[in-house]
């Protein structure tokens, strides 16, 4: 898994963790993704950008198993992944957040984050119900992990608040916390900064970088804010009308004429 990298990265990233090969996704007659290939390396922050309707979210949904592509192969940790249900993908260690926030509104922040660790609880059911033996130990361990994440994301003061009452920016943060609680190999973020004000964006940026730094989590994200993307990511995939039109470091992508034309609409060079 630790083959040498040849990318001109400023930061050291590991081998290929996920490899997407010739992915094509259709909805009836509409082709959302056309023959796209790219990889995600261990420990990197990989961005997927593109204009509205370019197929970015579809791509993320393919990775997280919410959509099954008609063609192409998905390789994860060196194995080819067959068609899987989203919950099976999640159990493999791929956590995600959603563009339009999917949280459990009726539960407290703490309970929401705890659901991220459901799959790590192995105690028999009677032990859990009676709160005795293995279940108690597990709960305490999981709770400790969750508290670490809560501290890390600076949401201590709202941990008992029902999520439904929180403002938008904090909800996004709780969603990130829940995804982190699963200790994922790959963290998928669908527009983590959409709809945020400048201050919230800065916070979120800092958290994403810190997560990558401290936990070494591999992150793939979709984002509209170009400034943010260029600052955050190690490598960028650019999509337009379901095709891949660019792939490389932020600097490479920025100088790619096709990318410029997609974003500015015109490019008569």
């Amino acid at each position, binding site marked *: 898994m630790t083959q040498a990298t040849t990318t001109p990265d400023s930061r050291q990233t590991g081998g290929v963790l996920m490899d997407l090969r010739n992915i094509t996704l259709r909805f009836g007659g509409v082709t959302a993704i056309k023959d796209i290939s790219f990889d995600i390396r261990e420990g990197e922050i990989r961005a997927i950008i593109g204009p509205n309707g370019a197929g970015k979210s579809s791509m993320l949904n393919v990775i*997280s198993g*919410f959509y099954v592509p008609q063609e192409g192969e998905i390789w994860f940790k060196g194995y080819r992944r067959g068609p899987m*249900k*989203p*919950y*099976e993908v*999640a*159990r493999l260690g791929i*956590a*995600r*957040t*959603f563009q339009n926030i*999917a*949280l*459990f*509104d*009726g*539960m407290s922040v703490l*309970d929401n984050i*705890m*659901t*991220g660790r*459901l*799959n790590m*609880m192995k*105690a028999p*059911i009677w032990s*859990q*119900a*009676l*709160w005795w033996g293995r*279940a108690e130990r597990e709960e305490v361990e999981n709770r400790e992990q969750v508290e670490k994440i809560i501290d890390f994301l600076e949401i201590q003061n709202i941990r008992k608040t029902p999520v*439904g009452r929180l403002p938008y920016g904090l909800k996004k943060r709780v969603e990130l916390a*829940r*995804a982190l609680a*699963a200790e994922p190999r790959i963290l998928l973020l669908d527009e983590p900064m959409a709809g945020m004000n400048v201050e919230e964006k800065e916070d979120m940026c800092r958290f994403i970088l810190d997560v990558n730094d401290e936990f070494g989590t591999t992150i793939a994200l979709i984002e509209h804010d170009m400034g943010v993307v260029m600052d955050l990511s190690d490598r960028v995939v650019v999509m337009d009308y379901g095709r891949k039109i660019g792939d490389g470091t932020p600097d490479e992508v920025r100088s790619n004429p096709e990318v410029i034309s997609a974003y500015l609409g015109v490019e008569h060079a």
Partner: protein
Amino acid sequence: MEFLYASEILLNGLMAGVMYALVALGFVLIYKASGVFNYAQGVMALFAAMTLVGIMEGRVPFAHLIGAAFGVHVSSFGWTVPGLLAILLTALIMVGLAIAIEKLVLKHLVGQEPIILFMATIGLAWFLEGLGDVMWGADVKVLDVGLPQGISETVETLTNDWLGYGFFIDRLDIWATVIAAALVAALVGFSQYTKQGRAMRAVADDHQAALSVGISLQFIWIMVWSIAGFVALVAGIMWGTKSGVQFSLSLIALKALPVLMLGGFTSIPGAIVGGLIIGMGEKLFEYFVGPMVGGATENWFAYVLALIFLVFRPQGLFGERIIERV
């Protein structure tokens, strides 16, 4: 003496309320987990009770069909099965039923409007009713799982010694209370503290989010319908013992409706408290007000109470407040 008599009525009302609550519980479970009002809950109780009787008496399922198709007339295996074992077998059949419902109905309606799912449960109710009749015959069956006798007499003697007035409480009501208490304790423990219970609450809240943390919707639905099937079995046993196993058993679902409106569709404790209030209210209203209006108030009291609640507190006593942010 007047006071003691009133309290006896009150107590009887409370216990009758427990019987209503037993039915309401099944509704709450499925509504909580999938937002579906399961119209078939009452029929599930009937089906469970029929199956239980059938197994206990060693009846041959589909006896009429077999007779019509092969000309062989067998109605009984010639054995009887003890109550506990038969209950266990029936519970297994209810799990099988839950799996079948998930595979044949729910799976194909994922993401549909609640009203569509509601319609599907109406269809399910009719189907199950027919299936029950074809399997076990439409005759009125007597159900006796062998609940210990004599508890009524004990209560009567005890209260007579203490208060000088013997409380009469139906044996079945006492057992219903004990069983309901155990059932509710188990359900609350399950849904609050276990991994599966948390997953169930998660699914109830948001499907996408549940999937993204690795919860299998399919498994949770089968689990919830199995539990609801088991609760239906318990309700079927209690009501079937009380009034015989027959078609009208499925109409107990109607009695559960006001209970749900009072307690809230999403709350397990709500189902219990709602049941108690209605059971108690019914009896006391009949006792105090009934004579003034010519009696028979028990037929409508619960529904009028439910209507009043719908006007002033539509989410019920314990239901989640519906807040729509605009």
